[in-house]
């Protein structure tokens, strides 16, 4: 089993590691302590103290905040229960006309706005573009990953979390009453 110094993992994460070395890491058996080092690197870089349970994207993390597990941006903006699609708490900008699409795609490179809309999800705190969706009207936002955190920590890492929550998508619950 391979093992790597945390400084080398940090270089890998930052794209600073020489490509031949990256290829060696890709080809070798994987390091069993990567997750711990990965979380430590991320924890060191954020300006807040809540424990990172799972990095979701380069900007978003599932963290333990008191008794709750919430999604939090690296800037500190909070998006609520990780079992609710965090996009419900984001700012959204939609490009669904030739004019608005032209800021990104022009002429031959422009998709047809009657077939597709480009949705930009942005952090209300720092303005990071968190995700972009290109979908026809009517598509619910993708809930890209709903991790089964308790199983992961208890059965896969052998380090159960202190509390247990149900593994369920609570997005529709959070939207109850929106149309009234």
């Amino acid at each position, binding site marked *: 089993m391979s093992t790597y110094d945390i400084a080398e993992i940090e270089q890998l994460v930052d794209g600073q590691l020489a490509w031949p070395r990256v290829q060696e890491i890709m080809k070798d058996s994987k390091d069993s302590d990567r*997750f711990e080092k990965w979380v430590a690197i991320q924890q060191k870089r954020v300006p807040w103290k809540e424990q990172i349970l799972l990095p979701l994207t380069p900007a978003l993390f599932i963290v333990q905040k008191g008794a709750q597990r919430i999604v939090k941006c690296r800037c500190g903006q909070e998006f609520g229960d990780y079992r609710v699609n965090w996009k419900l708490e984001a700012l959204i900008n939609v490009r669904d006309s030739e004019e608005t699409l032209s800021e990104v795609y022009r002429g*031959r490179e422009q998709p047809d706005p009657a077939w597709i809309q480009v949705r930009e999800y942005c952090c209300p705190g720092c303005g990071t573009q968190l995700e*972009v969706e290109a979908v*026809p*009207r009517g598509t619910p936002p993708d809930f890209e990953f709903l991790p089964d955190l308790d199983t992961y920590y208890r059965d896969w890492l052998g380090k159960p979390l202190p509390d247990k929550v149900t593994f369920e*998508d609570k997005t529709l619950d959070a939207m109850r009453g929106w149309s009234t």
Partner: protein
Amino acid sequence: MTQTVERTVKDDLKRNDLLFQETGCLFGLQDLRRKAEDPGKYEAVWHILLNICNTAWAVGCRVSASPIAVEGGDALWALHLPTGEAVATSKGITAHPGLLAAFIRSLIELDYEKAPGIEHGDVFENNDAHYGGIHPADFDAAIPIYYKGELVAWASGVSHVMDSGAILPGSIGFMNPDSFADGIPVTMEKVGENDQFLPSYEMRIRSRTRMPDWVMGDARGRLAGMITIRDRVIALIDKYGLDYFKDVMQEYVEDSRRYAVSRVKTQGVPGRIRKSNFKDLAMLGKRVIMPQQNVDLLFNLPLEINITPEAKVKFSLRGASGWVPFGQNITPTAIVSALLNAYSHIVGFDMFNSGAVAAWELDEPPPGSWANPYPVNYFAASGVAWAPAVMWMSSLYETFGRVYYTRGFIEEVAAGAGTTMTAEFAGINQLGMYVAGLTLEQASNGAPARGMADGENSAWCIYTPNADFGNAEVSELYYPIVYIGRNVAPDSGGYGKFRGGLGHTAVWMIKNTPGVEYSCGCAGMRSKVVGNHGMYGAYPAWPDRASYAHNTNLKELIDAQQPLVHESGDPVEPDLAKLIKAASMNLNVVAPFVTPEQLVEYDIVIHPISGAQALGDPIERDPETVRDELDQGWTRARIAADVYGVVAKDGKGDWTVDAAATDKKRDEIRNARKARGVPFKDWWQQERKRVQAGEGMADAVKGMWRTSWELSPDYGAEMKAFWQLPDDFTY
């Protein structure tokens, strides 16, 4: 008196299935005994088997006739257990081992042992999607391997032929309206004996394909590769013994299953993954074959993956839209094989074979959908069945990338894939010979962005790890075309912190022909829409659009030594329009299409091959990387400024970045995003009214939702619950 009943391979098949159910291990192998006893020997024999398959690939491709196999290597050879499971495969089109395994299994299940019998020297073949094939141009073949009278293995081979005898010339039958138009069927047949093809097989190819010499040449290539495997496997058994060979053949498959499971468990995270994706097929008003094809369609390609606590991976296509009256329907059997291909890229293998299939499950795709058409339309066409499947598979790269990211295996992260837009020519070539066939351009896309780097340019392909667009001179040898451009296409890999590998553009001049048709085909492309692949805030790569000019002034320009057209150029003012005059100028053509007119001398075709998808917020891209790509012509000034937020100054091709101004501009972009963005709930309340009214939605969009909801009522119910629409709402 007791009657002895001879044990059949079919009996073994049933026993194996039962053992897997009982033990969770393939063939009931709870221990890998041979591996444990002598791991070095176990590994050595594995590599011998791989070398045998790759030798078959080299021999088979060289014996083949078509440039697709000879130059592009669009073929594969494999070694199987008697019951069909693929054990070792060559390089080549790795989407096929699953199909070849299913083909051999079907021969056993259909009692071919009894009739017509399975003898040494027999050749079996199938290209019929109704019986496990994928599309008619891919001929799947197999020969039995006997050792001292016992069936001990199979050798298989597949190659993509130039013409499958479909209603239109060539091998990318996207226009086929139904299976009757798909072309020559070879339906689970014994097509050869004594290592030779039967006369009836060759006679059928001669009467039912447009390029019989090349189609037969490819058949002989498949057979040569399979005989190579057979002869060398027999020599290997002579050396290592039959018992050892039989044991390790099974252990390699079980070993692969264990590897796939353990990799998910040690590098993934359990949970639910969802990714929507879409693909258009806009044919309204174009040249089609049947009236019902005069229609615009949008495919729903939804992917849901559940990684269970046991690290089992369950795939679902719940919500897939309906079958289409074109050659773009695929069967569940073929999807399993496609998944194996994607798995080989994403999960990776020490031993790539059928074992991984046992590590996951695919829910039956909605009956009547593009992914399972036969329960509703048994005659649905499959001329290029890969088309929707490869777009769907593209989501697998991104979604697994997201899972690997959470666990910190950033070197394994990949964004979505490029698309597969093909170019075929049909007509008389410079030798006075009729040709119909595929160029190889599509076999070399950009590679997906990585978690920590850009993707490679023109060096990757979703359907084969052997990305190779072949030598231009070889395509010129077969088809009446001259390359006047083959260039990296700037900004074709999406816009992100890390961009996808860039694609390229081929520019062809038609030459030395009285007339030729250009088919800009869909083997998995988008032209009206872009892929839903904005990973971590990146913008997706743009749609696939081709251009062509008919009856041009190119000869005058050449004679006068004036500039020609060598690339697409500006998307609003393309080079073709700026530099060339033509009686018929077709810019920005929505693909796929077949030219309604014969192209003639000095006509021009501009055919782009897509890059792959990007990753990360574009304004986090390293400004120095942007500067470098401005210098190289790989990104354009407007994109650098408006999308990447880089303030740079042009010193006549030698750009410099103003770092302070760039920081300021990027802050302005962040602030502008916050200013124009609206809270999701506010947007949802307005958007809900538009969704309910069908406002700003093409008919193709509404038609897609209608069939998705009909075929997957639970999917429809969840979507309507999201928009809080009545249960009976429809378009």
